[in-house]
């Protein structure tokens, strides 16, 4: 295998991992603090992607449109997230997981229908802004600049999340909520409002993923379930509730997929790898690489 093929495969895996990290970290954060699996997480990602393509296509100005979308989409989706938490999830805390799964799944249906009505059912695609388009040559291949941007963005967000969790008051409260929400309540922190905030952050992360992925891949009506199942796999492998887990999990999944595609014997089954790995982790070490055993 030539050096440039290797480089290409690694870079492809890393850029794939970038968007997945954004989505998975949101899912994981929400589970860690609220102990809820949000089936509609992928839908929020999809809604943001459609909003982005709509804005960019409407303005016919990729650069400005993209910037606008980067601000508007996460804000809108975070607001939707707040509504979901207050109106739906609050009634379901502490009840069986099945009810939470069903309720959030119902939301998936609502969003899927809503997106089809508002945006139509055809696929959309947009091109990246001028500044980020084009490519970098690596030996005999050209690697898109935008994919480098994705990796950069993921690193920035990972750093920002770290700072949020470990250097801010809000982050401290979130970590405390993950450890002992009852004690947090007794310490004078409004845990209910904190939960809403955390959900909004999770939704915002999914939305960010949706915005950033739009210039890279076609925006379709099935992207909600595809990304959700990948996010599940990452969270399981890395550990539900762990930021580091989402990071490492995304790396594993992204690289496994791209290396799987590389070899002709395995390329067809690369999709299945992740799920087999997920199954193995669930059987042997269900809390994942970085999760904590008591966390369910």
């Amino acid at each position, binding site marked *: 295998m030539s050096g440039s093929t290797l480089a290409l495969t690694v870079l492809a895996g890393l850029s794939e991992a970038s968007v997945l990290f954004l989505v998975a970290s949101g899912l994981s954060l929400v589970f860690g603090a609220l102990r809820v*699996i949000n089936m509609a997480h992928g839908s929020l990602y999809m809604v943001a992607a459609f909003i982005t393509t709509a804005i960019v296509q409407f303005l016919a100005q990729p650069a400005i449109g993209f910037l606008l979308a980067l601000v508007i989409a996460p804000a809108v989706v975070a607001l939707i997230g707040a509504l979901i938490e207050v109106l*739906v999830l609050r*009634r*379901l805390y502490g009840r069986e*997981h*099945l*009810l939470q*799964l*069903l*309720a959030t*799944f*119902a*939301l*998936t*249906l*609502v*969003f*899927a*229908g*809503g997106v*089809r*009505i508002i945006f139509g*059912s055809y696929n959309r695609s947009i091109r990246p802004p001028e500044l980020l388009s084009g490519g970098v040559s690596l030996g005999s291949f050209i690697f898109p600049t935008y994919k480098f941007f994705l990796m950069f963005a993921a690193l920035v967000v990972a750093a920002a999340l770290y700072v949020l969790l470990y250097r801010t008051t809000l982050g401290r409260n979130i970590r405390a909520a993950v450890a002992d929400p009852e004690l947090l309540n007794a310490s004078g922190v409004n845990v209910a409002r904190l939960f809403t905030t955390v959900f909004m952050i999770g939704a915002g992360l999914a939305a960010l993923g949706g915005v950033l992925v739009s210039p890279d891949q076609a925006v379709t009506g099935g992207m909600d*379930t595809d990304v959700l*199942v990948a996010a*599940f*796999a990452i969270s*399981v492998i890395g550990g539900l509730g762990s930021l580091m887990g989402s990071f490492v999990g995304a790396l594993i999944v992204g690289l496994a997929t791209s290396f799987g595609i590389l070899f002709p014997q395995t390329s*067809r*089954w690369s*999709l*299945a790898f992740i*799920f*087999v790995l*997920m*199954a193995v982790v*669930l*059987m042997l070490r*269900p809390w994942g690489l970085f999760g904590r055993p008591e966390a*369910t």
Partner: protein
Amino acid sequence: MPALTRLRTPEGMRWVAAGLLVVVAFTLPPLAGLLETILPDTISANFTLILGTSALVLALWSVSYNLMLGYTGMVSFAHAAYYGIGAYTVALLYQDLHWSVLPGLVLSPLVAGLVGLVTGFISLRAVRLYFSLLTLAISQVCFVIAFEWYSFTGGDNGIHGISPPDFLLNPTVQYYFVGAVVSVCLLTMFLLVRSPFGAALLAIRENRLRAAAVGLNVKRYELAVFTVSAAFAGVAGALFAIYDLQAFPQLMYWTESAHPVVMTLLGGSGTFLGPALGAAVYTGLQNSIGRTFPAQFDIVLGAIVLGVVLVAPGGLGSALDGIRRLAARRSGSRGPAKQDSEGDALVRIDVSKILAIRPAKSQAERSSGGTLLRVEGLSKRFGGLKAVDGVSLDVLEGRRHAVIGPNGAGKSTLFNLLTGQIRPDAGKVVFGGVDITGRRPHQLSRFGIGRAFQITNIFPKLTVLQNLQYSMLAHRGDTVRPFGIADRRYRDEAMQLLEAVGLGPAFALQAGLLSHGDQRALELAISLALGTRLLLLDEPTAGMSPYETKRAMELVNGVVAQQGLTLLFCEHDMDIVFGIADVVTVMHQGRVLAEGTPEAIRSNPEVQRIYLGDVELDAPQTEAGARA
């Protein structure tokens, strides 16, 4: 009760609804024809029949799913995979071996069941949420295999152009054929859930711990129901291939598994045909709104599911029940039975009745004095902490043996070790001469060890009578039988026991609605029914009012003593300890500090010290006076 009044009860209404559903299903072809003549522009008979066929298949699929969800409490995302496997079995046999679809139909449950057995075994390595996620992973693997293995499965194109045998070309005949197959499958499943096997499933759903404690190997039953459920899903998939004439990978995508869940939710998971009703409703909705406005249909469906989950998780069935109860309350009429029992059971206990069922053992039989339970050097550590450190004690047959000790003494850990909940690091436990060290809970009940848990542990949604009957079924090994009607077995014996512990009037009440004291009485009845020789009670009077406590003491003294039951219990309430116990073992920091008669323990200065600390023991004489 006169027949018509019987129909008005919730149970009766369900039979009526089921009957209606069946009648409509039977008469759909003529009905459709009739409707077409009345409204030729809107209704096409053929199309209605095709819808009906589709609804029948979905009904089978959902009811099979409900075996896991409603009856055993398992949430699986893999159900679409078995549906798809059934469809592919028919399609591949047709395409590659040129077999007609009928042998494919017959083979489909076998293939799907086999895959279900293997994948179920894998999935059950994990519990609860992780189990569900594992089924999701498995479903996706199946999907990818179907999607990618172009040479075998036709890849993302799937397999089309299956041609059915000639007699199935007529929509009416096809409808009745599918209906016949579905009916046979539904009937089989119905008999299964009514059988003792089904009773075991319900017990597991209600309370896994208690189910194990009465003798059920829970994992084995879960695997069995998983396999059976998968097999019937396979039949449904095969029928799909037969009427839709194709099979494709999308059938196995994990989100497709949501369909049976939604249909079950719409119709209610608490009844056998509920999911079938949900399937009919869903098909109707999908083909009216869903046809013209697919996007709106999704939204409406989502809104309905959301509404049901938030307001009435029991499905439409329970929503109707709720409305009826509300109406009854408004109009002032009393419901069929009082909602909560009033703790009367302990009041009504008639020890003589218990003795009639289980005659008092003679003095010789009672305290044979033999050692029933011998514990030798039992130890368990958690991390750095030795919770139980070399504990040895002997419990003699017929004795009432109390274990006391301050907080952290290790009493609960000791109990967990004795009942197989956790395994010891060292030591031996010998019961009736048999080494039972490290045995699992469901095995212990066969030996005659019964446990009442600290938090009352019964099957909440089963009736009081069912609690007792199903425990007996499980304990006597009847639950492996998938035929016979569970609710008829041991009925008389169970009723006698219930009368004896004072729960006779409450036999039809859901056990979860009993008061705390009544639930304890039920637990006692279960122990008596299982022929328990040694009863382990972990803080039995916690949470009882003083009156209930007093009555519970009388019950225990009366029944246990006369029966020759051996009692090992731990308590904080000293009145209970000294009122009941023959022998008291004192634990402190994981070890046995002292053992003896209650009087000896009370006057043991070391024991006083661990409870009272190093305080001047002033006025101990008045203590005796205060007790009098």
